[in-house]
């Protein structure tokens, strides 16, 4: 079917077909775009996804709820925190756990917002790289190390934080560490302000991004675009405000929106969201030390037949978990809907039509796609130079130990 379609298209347009992907320097992950070009102008695009399929939903049906906690964390290497939190919320809904301790709520919020900052800095770096501005790429990723440091101070890990569990969180944030964390946050805030200035005023960046990859408000509504991409098109949607979870309705922050609908608006939304996240974090850190030191409540191992839904705002947009239980300790079905799926698959061909090939990487990067990340770990012993792979049970042991 697909081949036939592309053949027909080949006949109708005079140009040529340029395959972008599955392996291409533009992507971090594998995905395929077939570009039908006329000179440098994009006439048509076919999106073929599925190169990173790992069957995680199927795997989840064979493992118990606690094992799935680690699996959910590894769906995405960048949004690992929000995946676990959403999974936990979903299973808590399933179990009927309504109120988790106040301190656990704060710690979860802190993890989510730190992750948002880290993801947005990563986005700025990727975008600068696609623009051919390697310096901004190096600088943003250097500053991203500061968020990673904070996350490491809190959880002991830079990427898979493994903090939330059913009914609360696993580890506490010691009060003694908070002053140092706040100092690092101040630095991040100043850097985010600097990048806001750079991305707003740099002549070349503006030239490459303003008016490119237009995604109108109507279009965004029609195709259910979510997250920062929708907010850059003037839609005031954010799960944190629309369906508040954790502490987001108690904290003082605002939704960042832009009306320009182009790549530049999408960049600026993300930069300003970093500043909003810093604002949320400062409030959280101020209040977390005043809560009582109660980290989690007991959760049952088996779950009665039930179904539940949890929605959160991941750094890239709305993240949805849906679970059905069958009375055992293994879920009947878990469905994950990531924001990239909502943003990319249907809308990319419409957005790219008529654009120049030179603008393609920037437009795609400004949509911030995330297809998946690696699901295996290789450990390198620095002293002996020995390389070994870790299997699931070992990873789980390590996760519990920390």
């Amino acid at each position: 079917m697909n081949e036939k379609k592309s053949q027909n298209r080949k006949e109708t347009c005079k140009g040529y077909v340029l395959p972008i992907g599955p392996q291409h320097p533009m992507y971090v992950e594998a995905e395929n775009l077939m570009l039908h070009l006329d000179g440098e102008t994009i006439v048509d695009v076919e999106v073929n996804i599925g190169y990173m399929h790992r069957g995680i939903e199927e795997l989840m049906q064979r493992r118990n709820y606690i094992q799935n906690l680690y699996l959910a964390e590894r769906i995405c290497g960048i949004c690992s925190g929000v995946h676990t939190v959403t999974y936990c919320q979903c299973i808590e809904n399933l179990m009927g756990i309504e109120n988790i301790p106040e301190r656990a709520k704060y710690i979860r919020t802190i993890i989510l917002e730190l992750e948002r900052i880290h993801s947005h800095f990563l986005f700025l770096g990727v975008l600068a790289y696609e623009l051919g501005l390697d310096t901004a790429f190096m600088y943003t990723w250097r500053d991203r190390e500061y968020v990673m440091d904070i996350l490491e101070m809190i959880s002991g890990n830079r990427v898979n934080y493994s903090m939330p569990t059913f009914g609360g969180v696993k580890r506490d944030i010691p009060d003694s560490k908070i002053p140092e964390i706040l100092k690092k946050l101040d630095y991040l805030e100043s850097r985010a302000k600097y990048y806001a200035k750079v991305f707003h005023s740099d002549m070349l960046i503006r030239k490459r991004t303003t008016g490119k990859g237009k995604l109108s408000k109507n279009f965004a509504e029609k195709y259910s675009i979510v997250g920062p991409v929708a907010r850059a098109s003037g839609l005031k949607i954010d799960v944190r405000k629309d369906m508040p979870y954790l502490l987001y309705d108690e904290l003082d922050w605002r939704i960042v929106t832009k009306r320009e609908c182009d790549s530049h608006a999408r960049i600026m939304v993300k930069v300003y969201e970093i500043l909003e996240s810093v604002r949320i974090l400062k409030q959280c850190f101020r209040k977390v030390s005043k809560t009582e030191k109660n980290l989690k409540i007991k959760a049952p191992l088996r779950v009665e037949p039930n179904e539940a839904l949890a929605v959160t705002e991941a750094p890239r947009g709305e993240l949805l978990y849906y679970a059905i239980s069958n009375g055992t300790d293994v879920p009947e079905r878990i469905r994950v809907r990531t924001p990239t799926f909502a943003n990319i698959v249907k809308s990319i061909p419409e957005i790219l039509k008529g654009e120049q090939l030179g603008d393609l990487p920037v437009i795609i990067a400004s949509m911030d796609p995330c297809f998946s990340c690696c699901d295996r770990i290789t450990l390198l012993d620095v002293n002996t130079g020995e390389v070994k792979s870790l299997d699931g049970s070992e990873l789980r042991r390590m996760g519990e130990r920390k």
Partner: protein
Amino acid sequence: MIFESMIYPGAFFVVFMSLLYSGILRKLSARMQHRIGPPIWQQFFDIIKLLHKEDIRPEQAKMGYTFWPFIAMISVLISCLLTPIGGTIPLGSSDTIILIYFLIFGSLALYLSGFSSSNPFAVVGAVRGVIQMIGYEFPFVVSIIVTLLATGSIFPADVNSYQTVHGWFAFSFPFAALAYFISVLAKIEVPPFHIPEAHQEIVSGYYTEYTGTRLAMIMLTHSLKLFALISIGIAFFFGGSTSILEFLIKSMILLFLISLSRVVMARFRIDHAMRFCWIFGFVAFIDLIRVCSFF
């Protein structure tokens, strides 16, 4: 004579220095980008490694695939040897038109190598390269003509020695010097002009298909182009050079300027690059009018 053309300051010296310059350029931009960067000998390692690699030839490749990289390398090398290096011209004095001819032919041969490899990415890269060429040759040639008219001679050696007496052309013709600098950035394809090899869009551009010895030749051509343009820049705008030490110091300053502009700018789109280059072509025209009316 043979020593002068082959060893010092001839082919051997030029190849050595051009690779070293590329290494320094990489190191400088790395430090500016807050990275450690590769060692300055990295280009040597790369070239030596590539020379030992297997040579893969795609089935669809056309005849020129085999020889265009070598022709490109040789013609850019010749243009290097026609520039005054520390007061002497390794191949003996010849006029500027030959020098520019070999330089342009070198770039053209690179793009032809892209066309002959029959890879869609390479073809897009080569088309972009040729389009960009139409852009950058204009300011380049205009700025060179300004200096030639001011000197009243067509020989690079004369332009070189004229400046030691009458002062730097970079100061007397700042617009032409600026246009020259912009065209240098475009010619050596560093940001913001790395459009023909924009790897986020078209993998490696015109040399996507190349491996082994031929890729080494293409990399060497890039380095030699950098050397040739720095050498021309010193001879035509930056006061010329009477000794090799002066040459090296001035080329370090130019390398610093190139790496500075390399790290602060994003990539142009091809149509933006054209417009930008042509604007600087007309900027250089200001000096052309000045030199026609006053000198």
